[in-house]
């Protein structure tokens, strides 16, 4: 029964993620911890493996279409990978309660940002491509270390941090930023996952079942994108994440 639940849950997460335009990591971890009762460290490690699968599938298409800005991706990736590895090490040493508080705070932030964006959405978006100074490149690289750190610590892709870095600091158009971030997420998540897999924290069956469910869910979500209003999906996503963060924060045991 549990395997079926995991596949159905992952399918739903893939569907929502594709429509809301976010990575699945921020929903996968609460799903595993709160709905299925997994240990928070196992959930983080397993989620990261699933992110490698989804990101690789998506960025395969982006690379084929030439949408990835390889110069920016490779400029940011070394420090991001280093951040992810450091993050995974931090998670190994942190007590579960500290992780729950940190995760709860992160999801609270993402849910607030998602709802805010959905309510204050501007048509056309911000596209300000232009020249990037050495200072901007340095700031972008430093901040991408933080994105990697978040990925390694929390088991998320880190796109929620990378895309703003690329659009606002590296001045990439939004579509290029999303494609470049997706390519980078696979590499970053793989870097963090190396640490978890060698420490036997990844649940292989759950990772496989999640991957099996999330890909068709994301494909269906992408197909339904035109028929649904992303604004309302984002509000629902934000509300679910808000609930998850509150549940995480209240589940801390002395």
């Amino acid at each position: 029964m549990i395997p079926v639940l995991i596949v159905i849950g992952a399918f739903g997460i893939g569907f929502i993620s594709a429509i809301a335009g976010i990575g699945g990591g921020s929903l996968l971890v609460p799903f595993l911890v709160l709905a299925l009762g997994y240990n928070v460290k196992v959930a983080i490690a397993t989620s990261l493996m699933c992110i490698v699968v989804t990101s690789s599938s998506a960025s395969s298409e982006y690379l084929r279409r030439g949408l990835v800005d390889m110069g920016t991706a490779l400029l940011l990736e070394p420090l991001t990978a280093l951040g992810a590895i450091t993050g995974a090490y931090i998670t190994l040493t942190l007590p579960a309660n500290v992780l729950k508080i940190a995760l709860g705070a992160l999801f609270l932030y993402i849910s607030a940002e998602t709802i805010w964006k959905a309510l204050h959405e501007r048509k056309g978006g911000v596209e300000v491509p232009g020249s990037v100074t050495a200072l901007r490149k340095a700031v972008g690289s430093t901040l991408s270390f933080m994105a990697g750190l978040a990925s390694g610590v929390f088991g998320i892709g880190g796109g929620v941090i990378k895309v703003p870095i690329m659009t606002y600091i590296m001045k990439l158009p939004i579509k290029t930023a999303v494609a470049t971030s997706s390519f980078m997420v696979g590499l970053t998540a793989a870097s963090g996952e190396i640490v978890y897999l060698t420490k036997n924290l990844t649940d292989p069956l759950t990772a496989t079942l999640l991957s099996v469910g999330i890909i068709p869910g994301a494909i269906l979500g992408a197909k339904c994108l035109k028929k649904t209003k992303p604004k309302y999906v984002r509000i629902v996503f934000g509300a679910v994440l808000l609930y998850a963060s509150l549940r995480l924060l209240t589940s801390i045991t002395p």
Partner: protein
Amino acid sequence: MKYETPSLILRYGTITGLIIAILGEVLTTIKPTLKPLTYYGLGIIIATPITSLTAIAAIHAIKHDLKTFTLAALALAIMLTTIVVMLIKP
């Protein structure tokens, strides 16, 4: 710039890893000694983005684009060092 080969590596590497992992899980229920097959599958999934990055580095090396090649090689070096350290460390 379009990256056909790295794109193919990502697509088929992920599919192959996933199939081996599923096969491993199914076969483990019949013969528990086949559990490592699942880990091989997961290992292939992790190795896929790294292999794709290696192909990208090679493409830029062939084109004498030293800057992009160096950055790709740096990212690869960080990942490969981690793998080696994790395998050596008890």
